[in-house]
């Protein structure tokens, strides 16, 4: 049911009956390592290209989520996935292996919550019994496609971020035990003229602000309704900008409940190469579907708002001197 301008309440409260996360060696050195199901030591996963490695991670995350729920892939009504590679090949090729009816989505780094929103809508509309949704990203694939060859020696400015190598997936069902998806706010494209692809945080922050404001306005609640509000990958700079902008607009989110997945998944002191933090679809997917859902299952968090942010530019638009349009999708998950 639509609430307000752009939010939806899922009355039947679709349940996340299982979730799984896979990540690379660098993420395995980060603070969330113990909440990641499989940490690979080799960024190639034994494959002969980075792209094949990424699709393997997404497959593994999807299979693991099914395994944990004890559900067969033949019983799953739909698979909804997205990633950063051109033509979302990780998702499509993983879907080829899974053999489940498939919807590929592209929201850049907001794909995880975009997928969860669509999945929850299908469950809530009683159209299918189980929906599997996930997202993936790989540092080397993103660097190769969006920036420079991985061995190229360019100096990254302090505003840059580090694409997370990983995949996260969850299985949504109409009934069962687990955290429930209660509502979602679909974002609009927001573009405040940032052109620098090495400063995604500043580009995406306005979109996060816009969607968060829309969520509170549509749902008619205050920020303290939630125990935790996380953005997907604003990084330290974008996160600060978002917090200040929200305050400027009259929305006070207590700092201790406002986090960012990109800042949580790495330790910026021990892993200084991440510069302002993690990014990529896996930044929100691995953090939300792993660490944060675990904290919900243990009872530590009861209500969470996950706001995944995406920058919808391409290397071509940058070369054509375009600005960077961004989007943010928010999903409320409650125990």
């Amino acid at each position, binding site marked *: 049911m639509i609430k307000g301008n752009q939010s939806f309440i899922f009355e039947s409260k679709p349940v996340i009956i299982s979730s799984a996360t896979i990540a690379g060696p660098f993420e395995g050195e980060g603070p969330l390592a113990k909440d990641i199901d499989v940490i690979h030591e080799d960024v190639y996963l034994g494959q002969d290209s980075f792209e094949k490695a990424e699709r393997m991670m997404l497959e593994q995350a999807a299979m693991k989520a099914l395994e944990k729920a004890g559900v067969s892939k033949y019983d799953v009504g739909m698979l909804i996935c997205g990633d950063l590679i051109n033509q979302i090949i990780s998702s499509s090729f993983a879907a080829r292996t899974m053999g489940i009816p498939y919807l590929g989505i592209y929201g850049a780094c907001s794909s995880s919550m975009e997928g969860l929103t669509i999945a929850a809508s299908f469950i809530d509309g009683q159209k299918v019994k189980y929906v599997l949704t996930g997202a993936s990203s790989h540092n080397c694939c993103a660097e*190769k496609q969006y920036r420079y060859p991985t*061995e*190229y*020696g*360019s100096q990254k400015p302090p505003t840059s971020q580090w694409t997370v190598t990983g995949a996260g997936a969850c299985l949504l069902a109409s009934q069962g035990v687990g955290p429930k998806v209660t509502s979602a706010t679909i974002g609009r494209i927001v573009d405040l*003229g940032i052109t620098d692809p090495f400063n995604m945080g*500043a580009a995406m922050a306005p979109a996060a602000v816009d969607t968060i404001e829309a969520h509170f306005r549509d749902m008619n609640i205050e920020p303290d309704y939630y125990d935790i509000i996380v953005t997907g990958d604003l990084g330290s700079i974008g996160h600060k900008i978002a917090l200040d902008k929200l305050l400027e607009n009259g929305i006070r989110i207590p700092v201790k409940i406002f986090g960012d997945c990109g800042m949580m998944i790495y330790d910026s002191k021990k892993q200084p190469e991440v510069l302002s933090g993690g990014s990529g679809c896996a930044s929100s997917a691995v953090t939300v579907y792993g660490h944060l859902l675990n904290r919900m299952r243990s009872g530590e968090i009861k209500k969470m708002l996950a706001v995944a942010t995406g920058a919808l530019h391409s290397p071509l638009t940058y070369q054509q001197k375009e*600005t960077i349009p961004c989007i943010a999708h928010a999903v409320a998950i409650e125990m």
Partner: protein
Amino acid sequence: MSSNKDDKLNLEQQKYKDFAQQRESKRPVLTNCIKAFVIGGGVCAFGQIIQLMYIRYFGFTEKNAGDPTAATLIIISILLTGLGIYDNIAQWAGAGTAVPITGFANTISSAAIEHRSEGYVLGVGGNMFKIAGPVIVFGTFSAFAVAIIKMLLNYMGVFR
């Protein structure tokens, strides 16, 4: 909200740009310049030593020792690129590794190595000049332009 087609940002975008800039960590320009100076100077000094070696031990002259020197520096850069070390040095050194001929070699080899997975013809061959291409294109064209201009000026009797 649509993006502005004009080059000039509208008022809201300009306000946001200032808002964001105040909260960004600034590039440490002075530190980066010092690092670039030290590493860049070091690479050039190393090149000078190699050049003197070629003159003294391999019979090259001042005039033509530049060629084997360049080739030596290029091979070393490509080796460091292949071993995965070059990009770590470059993150620290910035222009210190990008400006010398080592940077040029790194652009070509990193692109070649990266696109191996797409085959040798289309992958390696087709992508090798991804970043080095502009250097060759604009170098060639500017040399052509300057040479033609010089020729015309000489022809018109202006001495240079």
